[in-house]
């Protein structure tokens, strides 16, 4: 392992050494050795990426143009895409997913930011409040969702939410059994489970806002609201826009909520999501190729969205 070459030496050593070492060659040797060691350290991770990330990306696209039946694989052109688009649930799944994404954006974006701004003003109980808000993020989603399914969204008056609504004199709901409430109920559960992460990230960026900015705004006579719109929001704009994008990409992958809360499709397909349709085709309709095609469609949609979003953001600045 030891590499004893002295870089830059050569004049005084030259006469003594039996075979004079060319310093350039020594450096090249060391560089080669560093390269080899470098690859040796990389190989494990590279193999894992190759098998489980890079190859599947290519495989997904290839699969979407093939059909495997009884062990035989043939090229079928756009057949898989045609079949998946003609699936009666295809457009419903996209509609539901988009509806969920929009609702989740309203709830899961505005509420965490508001909470972060509020929490940032507190000088007491900070640690306690942070622990509380992050607690649901740590729960296994399956556990949390069974809690919602059996105890909160019970359509009879024995459910937690219905008994609260009743106590307040409000009309109760059928929750997951009502096609109208399916999505809002899933958004509520999902927001409860996931918003802690966003709140903590916002809090960290709020703490980086220099106090002098608020000081100056206040001296200029800016009230509370003006300080939020003129200091807080512009100062956290970068993280706000990045989080919006990440959240859209994350919520578009809606799957476990419909699977557990609505047994997959929900009443009258009201819960079917795009990823659930992928799962359905791949593992219940014995149509891995159609499922792969839907995966490619989704990938194109999400990357397209990210690109347009990044472009619009860049134009604004």
């Amino acid at each position: 392992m030891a590499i004893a070459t002295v870089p830059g030496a050569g004049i005084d050593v030259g006469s003594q050494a039996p075979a004079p070492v060319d310093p350039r060659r020594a450096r090249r040797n060391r560089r080669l050795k560093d390269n080899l060691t470098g690859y040796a350290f990389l190989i494990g991770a590279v193999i894992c990426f190759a098998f489980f990330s890079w190859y599947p990306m290519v495989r997904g696209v290839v699969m979407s143009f093939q059909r495997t039946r009884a062990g035989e694989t043939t090229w079928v052109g756009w057949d898989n895409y045609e079949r998946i688009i003609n699936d009666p649930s295809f457009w419903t799944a996209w509609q539901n997913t988009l509806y969920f994404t929009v609702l989740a954006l309203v709830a899961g974006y505005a509420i965490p930011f508001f909470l972060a701004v509020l929490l940032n003003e507190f000088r007491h109980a900070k640690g306690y409040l942070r622990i509380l808000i992050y607690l649901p993020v740590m729960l296994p989603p399956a556990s949390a969702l069974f809690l919602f399914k059996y105890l909160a969204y019970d359509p009879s008056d024995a459910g937690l939410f219905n008994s609260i609504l009743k106590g307040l004199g409000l009309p109760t709901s059928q929750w997951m059994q009502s096609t109208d409430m399916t999505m809002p109920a899933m958004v509520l559960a999902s927001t409860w489970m996931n918003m802690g992460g966003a709140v903590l990230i916002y809090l960290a960026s709020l703490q980086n806002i220099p106090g002098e900015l608020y000081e100056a705004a206040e001296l200029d006579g800016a009230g509370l609201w003006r300080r939020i719109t003129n200091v807080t929001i512009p100062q956290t704009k970068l993280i706000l826009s990045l989080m919006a994008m990440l959240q859209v990409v994350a919520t578009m992958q809606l799957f476990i909520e419909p699977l557990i809360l609505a047994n997959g499709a929900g009443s009258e397909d009201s819960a079917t999501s795009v990823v659930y349709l992928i799962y359905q085709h791949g593992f219940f309709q014995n149509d891995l190729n159609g499922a792969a095609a839907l995966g490619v469609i989704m990938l194109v949609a999400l990357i397209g969205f990210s690109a347009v979003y990044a472009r619009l953001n860049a134009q604004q600045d």
Partner: protein
Amino acid sequence: MAHQSETRSLVSFAQLQRGRGKVIYWTLLTVVVIAFTLVFIGPLYWMITGALKSSPELAQTPPTLWPADPQPENYSDAWERLDLAKLLFNTFYYAVGALVFQLVLDTAAAYALSKLRPKLGNLILGMMLATLMIPAMVLIIPQYVTVIDLPILHISLIDSPFSIWLPAVANAFNIFLLKRFFDSIPEDLMSAARMDGAGSMRTLWSIVLPISRPILGVVSIFAVTAVWKDFLWPKLVMPSPETRTISVGIYAFSGGTPQNVVVAAAVIAAIPTIVFFLIFQRSIMSGLTAGGLKE
């Protein structure tokens, strides 16, 4: 960070200490503390006590705040019927294995990319980071097909823990976090070690890793919680009752099991993560924000 509480935020400190400001501040704080406790602890309380109720009591209107006739046997029932000991052990085993594989292979890779910088290093890094753009669910089908019949080797990893451990290593976010941390270790320190005759392995072990403890902690926590929370991937690649993870096991049993027993199992599944969180909450929460953005 918390120690900067002296710097002012939206409302100045002085304003909160006197008169009307003080009253509003304390009222708001009290309301928020109570509301947060109800919203975030309330459901957990409801879950733990709900699992103690008998089936008729669970269906009773209005629901009881405290189980009239607590039935701890629901928990033991869940433990035995779902073989929770086995499921918990499986999940723990997969989580620890994923942690070890990620720590060894991702740290080595990040070290190579940051300090040894082989010729194709930047290309490899770029290709790794590009995977961050691909939403996980989109790849689930080709990944599954790959795991059933691994290219070149033609072996199936179904029901083998490697189908969880190895894909976990392909985590560009970990490599990015580790590399960024290693980049901040001064070059002087590295060349000093080299002058003393330390090889790459030795430098990594006795110089880089001891300095990097905080980031290794963050990566470890992410690694363990990711496996514990994951659902669809283990459901697909660990289908047998003997190899299931706890979340998948509960889901599989939920159909033919009474609600209170399922909820009891869900409570048991959540306990390890809650304990883990309460022990490591400081590093988890600082890691989340130091590490930037994930989830």
